[in-house]
């Protein structure tokens, strides 16, 4: 990379290092792997920087981080998404089951566990939306799926999260 290009790259990408690490950390669920993935992602991003057309550097970088994370997951043979069957996990939307209990347990550990239990495809949209604050459109770009799929995954992710947090709070009370 030319110094001039390097400067452009740094200005466009370095501010999003936290976002990159956060996504890698949630996708790999492994702190060391997340560091390796981010480093590899920055390397790839630098190589393919010519294909970046300006605009939102964060969404572009997150796309690279996501692909690098999935490559790592595939290597680990722990690719949760591979075993994930959309039909099996689709238990209707929230509106068909209005008797949801309110979430009572929202301490850091329970929420983290509930998030980690989500299938990768649902976890990533929740992380991008709730922690990174991306719009539906940006999530669709990062995850390379249509808008409608983003919306249904968000909905299913939230539903499962809600169920998980309600269940763990009931268990908590039973003890």
């Amino acid at each position: 990379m030319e110094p001039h290009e390097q400067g452009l790259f740094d200005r466009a990408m370095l501010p999003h290092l936290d976002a990159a690490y956060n996504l890698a950390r949630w996708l790999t669920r492994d702190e060391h792997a997340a560091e390796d993935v981010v480093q590899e992602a920055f390397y790839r991003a630098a190589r393919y920087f010519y294909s970046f057309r300006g605009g939102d550097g964060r969404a572009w970088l997150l796309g690279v981080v996501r692909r690098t994370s999935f490559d790592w997951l595939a290597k680990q043979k722990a690719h949760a998404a591979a075993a994930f069957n959309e039909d099996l996990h689709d238990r209707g939307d929230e509106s068909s089951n209005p008797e949801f209990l309110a979430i009572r347990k929202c301490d850091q550990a329970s929420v983290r566990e509930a998030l980690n239990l989500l299938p990768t495809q649902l976890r990533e949209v929740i992380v991008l939306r709730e922690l990174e604050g991306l719009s539906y459109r940006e999530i669709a770009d990062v995850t390379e799926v249509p808008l409608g799929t983003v919306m249904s995954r968000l909905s299913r992710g939230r539903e499962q999260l809600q169920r998980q947090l309600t269940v763990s709070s009931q268990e908590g009370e039973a003890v």
Partner: protein
Amino acid sequence: MTCLEVQALLQSYSDGELDLVRHVEMEEHLKGCDKCAEQEKRLQSLRSAVTSSSQYYHAPTSLRRRIQFARPRTLPIRRRPLLRWAAMAAGVLFLIGSSALFGMLLSRISNSTEDRLAEAVVANHVRSLQVGHLTDVVSSDRHTVKPWFKGKLDFSPQVPDLSAQGYTLAGGRLDYLTDRPVAALAYQRRLHTINLFVWPAFNDEEKAMRNLSRQGYHLRSWQQAGMTYWAISDLNEKELDEFARIFQEHSVE
């Protein structure tokens, strides 16, 4: 709005993804309906459970260093005899730089009109998808869509049938751009929607295709036979180029 409609949009509402009109309609409904308001509250409490329990992982300092220092230092160190040359070079660079800056400012002024137009095109495209108001006249038949614009616009847009090429006409609607009503044609490619905005150009110049990208959407604009065209989609660039090319070929009658 009925409860069923509200519940279908509840998530988009809570995520701030609805247009203003829908958003206000939702607010009104939630004020008066306990059942829907309760569901909205549940979504909110789930969000605050996730966001308030500090689930964000910040990059460790060691990683930041690793990434910043994993670069070759490219600038050579200059020695003293070179200083004079460096000063002269700096002077020349300053002249080049300032004239470049002047040029940039000039082009910025002419670009800003295009930029504003591009932003307006993106906004119209997004709105057409969000509020489910993609088409005023729903038809894949060009002989239905083309006459529909008659009497609504002071021009008659070309509406070619491109279904054989894989771009199905979904319909047309009236939209508003550059302070005037324009024709919007909606074409579908698989799950992707292409909005094509058409209005009479200021002059008869033919303008070659321009490529732009905004907020993840790709845009193509061109001027042909006295008409200005702006196409926008989340489709990949290759297919959008193909669409623009085929449209140009087929809109010559």
